[in-house]
């Protein structure tokens, strides 16, 4: 039996004005378990708190009901008061008789009546309260960043700067991501490599950063502060620690016809390759799909020319197991396939290209050494048409495109158009747009410069059909402002392809039990207030894996994610919320209903031995809640068919008791 003290606050006249506080205190005196009841002007004041503390001592109280303002206001205060007097803070309940009573009711009679009922409900609940102690768990002081693009690199650098070790796992042979493929960056037009490659080098040289390139995460277990991660290090057939990156092998390899993915297949590389000159780590990788030695056992040229002896044809995939306190997802994006948009003749003509291909075409390190030449015949194009929103804002064609705006295309297209006009003033540039969206710092000014200073023809309307004929691309489009259908004989057509999350994101989300939206972007814990955290504790989001973003936005989010990780890693222990789900193992039948509704993946199953009434033991499958991961929403408690799952602090019988007290029948 509890010994409950009731403390009714006047809140000056805020409560006492419409609620007869003495009557409330008197009425609650007779409730079951109540041994003390009083009222006071300001219960939250020092004097008020002292009344509570003294009463706890004098009356050996085991539970407290404060009838006052909203628990959102002073629950924490009164819990501290109780704790200071040696009472478990979770033995305190608040009856909200201000916001939900005195402030909204005008007459004393009904206000008092309601306040008494609210007080009774709180007393009924406290009668069933039990002391709760928040769980504690340790924190592994190492972070994992999945993805080595600009988002991952920035996050890793920031975490490492704060003194914590970080591992970057990158599936490609080098870090750098999409940004490494770009030529210039908007709106300042500084070269992407000039600002990215120093960061790549920083990452490589930072003693707190370890780079697992050509690697993938294959398994994630554990929870916030204590993740167990398995990383597959794919066989690159070159010993990373021995290879000096001299590149001799990549010059001598006889297999010359491998499409170079770094240049989006617009030129070829060898079967052994270093993706680009500033690759980090700068070591060669053998492409097993094309290597003659690996396929037929005959060749071995690279091993012969390698003076360091780094080639190892017998290499196998290796699996590394690591422990991490926090995980950052930075898996990035890809342009969507243009296969289903053949009204633009992408599959029919080499001179219809995507914007990313255009980046390589104007990049000094690209297949044309930075000269803008038509892929089909190497001639200089004099008329170029850009098509915006190819596959973006596409509602009807879910299987072709994306419903969302890809956000970056308006700006990079303005950049491309401007760069062409700057370098080749004899070239006419047309941009077909639906809307020009430039809401960023110095963005609209940038776009206007393309129009006003560089003379780019911006035309409101879409392209309907591109017809390759002879050396020309006949572009049929609408000009909505002038009410015309235009026919332009272009030399090059550039498609602003929508971007989508990397394909690796979906399986990764499953491993992390992190949630995703229908477009496979990771969802954030709160769209406005917790934009870099995933709802899964200890998992953070950086860059385009969360939604389309340009470089400035990506970098800010990367740093924000890093600061959240640092905030987690500086802690030695994590204190949980004790109001979490708890399973009664004797009642649990192991059906998995709770596991399926848990948004955090906090529930797992284990086989446990139970002593049966007949003294035999039996192995049963029962649910087990991870206290470090559970956030206490209670979804599982309702899903549980046997009633085994309950929520501490909001137990079934507590809520029922409140219902009964209110219904007073």
């Amino acid at each position, binding site marked *: 039996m509890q010994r409950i003290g009731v403390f009714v606050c006047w809140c000056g006249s805020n409560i006492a004005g419409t609620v007869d506080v003495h009557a409330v205190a008197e009425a609650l005196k007779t409730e079951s378990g109540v041994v003390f009841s009083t009222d006071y002007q300001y219960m939250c004041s020092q004097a008020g708190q002292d009344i509570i503390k003294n009463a706890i001592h004098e009356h050996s109280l085991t539970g407290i009901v404060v009838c006052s303002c909203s628990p959102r206001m002073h629950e924490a205060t009164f819990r501290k008061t109780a704790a200071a007097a040696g009472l478990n803070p979770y033995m305190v309940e608040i009856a909200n008789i201000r916001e939900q009573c005195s*402030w*909204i009711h005008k007459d004393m009679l009904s206000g008092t009546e309601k306040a008494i009922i609210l007080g009774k409900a709180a007393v009924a609940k406290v009668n069933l309260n039990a002391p709760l102690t928040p769980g504690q768990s340790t924190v592994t002081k190492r972070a994992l960043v999945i993805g080595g693009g600009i988002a991952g690199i920035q996050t890793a650098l920031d975490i490492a700067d704060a003194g914590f070790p970080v591992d970057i796992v990158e599936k490609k042979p080098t870090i750098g991501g999409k940004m490494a493929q770009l030529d210039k960056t908007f709106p300042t037009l500084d070269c992407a490599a000039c600002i990215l490659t120093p960061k790549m080098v920083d990452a490589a040289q930072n003693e707190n950063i370890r780079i697992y390139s050509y690697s993938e995460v294959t398994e994630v277990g554990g929870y916030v502060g204590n993740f167990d991660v398995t990383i597959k290090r794919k066989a690159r057939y070159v010993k990373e620690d021995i290879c000096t990156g001299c590149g001799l092998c990549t010059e001598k390899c006889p297999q010359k016809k491998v499409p170079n993915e770094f240049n989006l297949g617009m030129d070829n590389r060898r079967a052994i390759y270093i993706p680009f000159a500033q690759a980090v780590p700068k070591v060669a990788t053998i492409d097993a799909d094309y290597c003659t030695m690996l396929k037929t056992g005959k060749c071995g040229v690279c091993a012969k020319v390698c003076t360091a002896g780094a080639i190892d044809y017998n290499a196998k995939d290796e699996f590394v197991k690591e422990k991490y306190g926090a995980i950052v997802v930075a898996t990035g994006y890809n342009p969507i396939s243009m296969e289903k948009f053949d009204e633009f003749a992408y599959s029919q003509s080499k001179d219809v290209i995507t914007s990313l291909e255009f980046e390589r075409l104007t990049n000094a390190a690209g297949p044309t050494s930075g000269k803008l030449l038509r892929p089909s015949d190497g001639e200089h194009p004099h008329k170029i048409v850009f098509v915006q929103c190819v596959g973006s804002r596409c509602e009807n064609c879910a299987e072709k495109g994306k419903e969302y705006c890809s956000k970056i295309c308006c700006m990079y297209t303005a950049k491309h158009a401007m760069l062409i006009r700057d370098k080749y003033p004899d070239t006419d540039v047309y941009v077909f747009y639906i809307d020009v969206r430039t809401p960023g710092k110095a963005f609209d000014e940038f776009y206007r410069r393309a129009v006003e200073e560089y003379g780019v023809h911006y035309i409101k309307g879409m392209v309907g059909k591109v017809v390759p004929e002879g050396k020309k691309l006949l572009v049929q489009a609408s000009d909505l402002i002038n009410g015309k259908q235009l026919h332009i004989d272009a030399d090059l057509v550039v498609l602003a392809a929508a971007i989508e999350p990397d394909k690796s994101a979906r399986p990764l989300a499953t491993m992390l039990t992190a949630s995703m939206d229908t477009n496979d972007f990771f*969802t954030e814990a709160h769209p406005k207030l917790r934009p870099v955290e995933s709802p899964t504790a200890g998992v953070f989001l950086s860059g385009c894996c969360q939604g389309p973003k340009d470089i400035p936005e990506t970098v800010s989010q990367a740093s924000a994610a890093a600061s959240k990780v640092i905030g987690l890693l500086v802690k030695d222990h994590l204190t949980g919320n004790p109001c979490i789900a708890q399973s009664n193992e004797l009642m649990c039948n192991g059906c998995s209903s709770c596991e399926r509704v848990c948004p955090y993946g906090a529930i797992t199953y284990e086989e446990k031995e139970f002593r049966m009434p007949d003294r035999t033991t039996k192995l049963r499958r029962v649910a087990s809640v991870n206290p470090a991961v559970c956030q206490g*929403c209670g979804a599982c408690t309702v899903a549980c068919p046997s009633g085994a799952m309950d929520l501490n602090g909001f137990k079934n019988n507590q809520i029922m008791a409140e219902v009964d007290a209110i219904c007073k*029948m």
Partner: protein
Amino acid sequence: MQDVKEFKPVIVAFCCNWCSYAGADLAGSNRLAYPADVKIIRVPCSCRVNPMFILRAFQRGADGVILCGCHPGDCHYSTGNYYTRRRMSMLFSMLDFLGIERDRTRVEWVSAAEGAKFAATMNEFVEKVTALGPNKRLEDLRCKQ
């Protein structure tokens, strides 16, 4: 002889801690009145509300039960209110089958900023329940004291 009193319904309102309870607090801060018949029970999330709680309320003589949660997509626990929506539509069709008038139950999404909506919803709900009169059908007479 006892006077025939004006019917005052008993209304139980379950409010999630993050949105609707805060919305109710805001209604209070703004002094937006709604009938004293409404008594709020705080739950962490609308998905914590077991349909059993609602049945219990009706058994114990509640005349109406309203459940408030965050707007779809805004749930503090990301998906809780979707479960609520599904569970309650099941429960309501069962209550319908039992002959409990549809207007005695309601699910409403109220955000922490919607104090006015909270008050308006409660006013409207109480009005409808009052019009229906006392709940007799599910009342468990064994509970009567």
